């Protein structure tokens, strides 16, 4: 491992030397329209490195001047706990994958279980199948309907082509639907208009290697496209007893996006991706670790039309098809999803804005039996119809705004879920805003919680559980006491009822049934601050606190038999305290030095294998990341860095299922080279 990263760093150093010695050229881009400028730019390099005047006008319009999160106007308008991760955060944090980038969100619980699996949730109840978080990419749901969760190793995209990741902590069900109990993560890719030209990005590191290639062009004056390809390889996690672990994995993904600006009011977008991965040893639901290679593949195609009439009226229609295939997982699994959604926003008079929409989603799921593992039934077709409406009323224009609305969902099990919410936003002046919200959200049972399955030695039955319901109460305060400083605080109280847990079946000894067996409540706070100390120095910090308490549901017939485990798991799967501090410095206009420190508290009820061979609860850890980013030329950037500087390796999560073996996250070093043409 040491030789590997030494070689990688040497290779990166050589690339830098070659670039520095190459003759300085004014960058040219493929001509797509008649050149009509009268450029007579000198080739003498200007002082201070990065010369913005060498960029074309189109590229200049892509330069990130401020990150969206620092535009207080927009954030102050939202009566919710919103965090936006923009390109500046992506580049300066050097967190190289989408699951890792979510660490930047205050109160988000991101734990890497092994080299190829993550447990990610917001506000509690974490696990490989954390099911209270709705994750979307460009509006397409990444939820795995059978097992109820997100397979994070399949969530990939070239990071430089991401526009932003918007995270709403807290219930998003009214607008986004069920399974958005504790948050919504929306990963938004850039319009192909903003990703023109060729781009190569290569990262070599002691743990992962990633290569991205993208080309963007123009079909006509109004139609833009891009195509991309990404390859990634990640090596094994560490084991305490220095046994070799086998959780390395690699994968390839390619895709395209076409945006047609048919008129000033209309945009038509078509995009698609396809991926395949090979994972050696992974944590699987129920079974734990498997030592045989898994193959996953999938793809999607999505079309969206947006029509903007004015800044208060717009319409959009979106349809997509998505396919996920997990081979030998313990049963072969295929999921085909068809989805269509419609949304419209219109004003009523001067003070009301109404948003409403409808949609339908169809899941076709097929599971193939393997010896010893059967799923019954092994073909499922589930559909969900949904409709929502929300009214936003300016009770006092620019001062007091009240919004209320509800989502209605009807699924093929003839269950109607109603998810209402109401929010109040008070903006006493430009610098302060206070908001409060009450919402009810639901999480519908996943297919495996409703089916008879034989996955391994324990037969799994079902008690036909109802959806879990959660009532949330939130307040928040945002203030900008002086221009360079913004502070944001949120507090919440959640009451969960009917959490679905596996319970021993009284009538069939040895069998475990899924039923609504546990109630819980949680409360906590998230505080964050952003301070532009000087034009070249920015500090960011956040702190979060979470406390969860669970108890068996007293109305359940089998309440004596709800294993103590289940309530302890709900209480102890997330850290109590977390904080992070970031220091982003522009040493020169083309040289950045970025430092991030993260502290994550211990997990009281998740156990991992310790050096003495016993299981102990996962201890707290401090992570220190540092990187240097050097813009060698306007179109060439080199970054080098180290992650987890303080510890050789550490656990972030542990064994949840009896056979699972989590691995430790090692210290890593890396170098990244980005070139655009």
């Amino acid at each position, binding site marked *: 491992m040491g030789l590997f990263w030494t070689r990688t760093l040497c290779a990166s150093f050589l690339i830098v030397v070659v670039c520095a010695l190459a003759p300085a050229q004014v960058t040219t881009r493929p001509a797509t329209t008649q050149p009509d*400028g009268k450029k007579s730019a000198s080739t003498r390099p*200007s002082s201070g490195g990065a010369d913005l*005047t060498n960029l074309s*006008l189109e590229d200049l319009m892509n330069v990130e001047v401020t990150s969206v999160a620092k535009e207080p106007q927009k954030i102050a308008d939202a009566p919710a706990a919103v965090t936006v991760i923009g390109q500046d955060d992506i580049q300066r944090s050097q967190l190289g994958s989408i699951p890792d980038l979510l660490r930047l969100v205050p109160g988000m619980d991101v734990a890497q279980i092994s080299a190829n699996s993550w447990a990610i949730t917001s506000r509690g109840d974490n696990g490989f199948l954390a099911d209270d978080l709705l994750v979307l990419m460009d509006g397409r749901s990444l939820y795995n309907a059978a097992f109820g969760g997100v397979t994070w190793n399949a969530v990939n995209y070239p990071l430089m082509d991401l526009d932003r990741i918007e995270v709403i902590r807290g219930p998003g069900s009214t607008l986004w639907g069920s399974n958005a109990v504790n948050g919504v993560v929306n990963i938004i890719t850039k319009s192909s208009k903003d990703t023109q030209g060729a781009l190569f990005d290569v990262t070599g590191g002691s743990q992962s290697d990633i290569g991205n290639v993208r080309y963007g062009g123009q079909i006509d004056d109004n139609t833009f496209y891009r195509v991309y390809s990404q390859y990634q390889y990640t090596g094994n996690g560490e084991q305490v007893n220095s046994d070799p672990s086998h959780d390395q994995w690699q994968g390839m993904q390619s895709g395209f996006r076409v945006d047609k600006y048919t008129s000033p009011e209309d945009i038509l977008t078509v995009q698609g991706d396809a991926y395949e991965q090979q994972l050696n040893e992974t944590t699987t639901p129920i079974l734990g670790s498997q030592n045989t290679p898994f193959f996953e593949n999938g793809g999607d195609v999505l079309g969206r039309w947006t029509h903007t009439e004015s800044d208060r009226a717009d319409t959009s229609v979106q349809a997509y098809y998505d396919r996920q295939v997990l081979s030998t997982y313990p049963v072969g699994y295929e999921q085909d999803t068809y989805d269509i959604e419609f949304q419209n926003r219109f004003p009523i008079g001067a003070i009301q804005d109404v948003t409403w929409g409808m949609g339908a989603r169809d899941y076709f799921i097929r599971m193939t039996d393997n010896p010893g593992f059967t799923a019954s039934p092994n073909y499922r077709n589930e559909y969900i119809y949904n409709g929502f409406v929300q009214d936003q009323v300016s009770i006092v224009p620019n001062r007091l705004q009240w919004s209320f609305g509800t989502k209605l969902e009807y699924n093929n099990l003839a269950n109607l879920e109603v998810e209402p919410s109401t929010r109040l936003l008070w903006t006493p002046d430009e610098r302060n805003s206070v908001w409060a919200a009450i919402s009810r959200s639901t999480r519908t049972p996943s297919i495996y919680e409703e089916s008879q399955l034989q996955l391994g030695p324990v037969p799994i039955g079902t008690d036909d559980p109802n959806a879990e319901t959660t009532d949330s109460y939130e307040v928040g305060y945002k203030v900008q006491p002086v221009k360079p400083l913004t502070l944001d605080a949120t507090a919440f109280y959640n009451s969960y009822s009917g959490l679905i847990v596996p319970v021993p079946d009284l009538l069939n000894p040895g069998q475990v049934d899924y039923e609504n067996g546990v109630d819980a409540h949680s409360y906590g706070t998230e505080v964050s601050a952003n301070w532009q*100390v000087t034009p070249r120095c920015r500090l960011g910090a956040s702190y979060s606190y979470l406390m969860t308490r669970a108890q068996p549901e007293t109305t359940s017939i089998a309440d004596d038999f709800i294993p103590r485990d289940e309530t302890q798991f709900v209480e102890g799967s997330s850290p109590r305290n977390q904080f992070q501090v970031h220091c982003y410095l522009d040493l020169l206009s083309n040289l950045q*030095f970025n430092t991030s420190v993260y502290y994550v508290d211990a997990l009281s009820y998740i156990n991992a294998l310790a050096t003495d061979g016993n299981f102990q609860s996962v201890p707290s850890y401090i992570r220190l990341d540092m990187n240097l980013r050097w813009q060698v030329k306007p179109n060439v950037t080199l970054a080098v860095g180290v992650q987890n500087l*303080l510890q050789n390796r550490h656990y972030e999560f542990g064994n949840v299922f009896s056979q699972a073996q989590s691995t430790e996250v090692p210290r890593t070093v890396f170098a990244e080279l980005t070139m655009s043409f």
Partner: protein
Amino acid sequence: MNSRAWPLRLGVVIAVVTATLPCRADAPTREYLVKAAFIYNFTQFVQWPTDALGDQDTPFIVAVVGDNPFDSALEHAVADKTVEGHPIVVRYFSSADQIQACHLLFVPASQDGATSAILGKVANMPVLSVGEGDSFLPSGGGIRLFIEDGRMRFELDPDVLEASNLKASAKLMKLARIYKK
């Protein structure tokens, strides 16, 4: 124990050193570095009438009225560059009364109150007025630079440019947001 402590020690040293690095407050902000680059691009993608440019030795003058939010960014953006062979120079005028001959006039947001007086001085002349404030275009300005979703954008009033005898290239018009009174 020694070998395992080095990363911690290294981390502390680096953190302390960077915390004491002087953070110079006089460097131009990113916003004005980008605006300076846009101003340079406007000189390249707008056409001035030949008689307004004068003879070969007459410089092309980019002027800023009021305070200077660019520090040295504007000089760097136009250093050694030309408009149709005319070298570009930067001049600073302290107020509307001090405005002399120029080809492009930048009006910082701090001059919001004096915008009418400033624009009155250059109305219907071959001078491209570029500003920042919300009221710039309604007051008769030519191009307004603003930030949207973290990126720099510009809004252009074609009638004002036409009245000034200036012609914006098709490329500039396509990238601009068009302002109509």
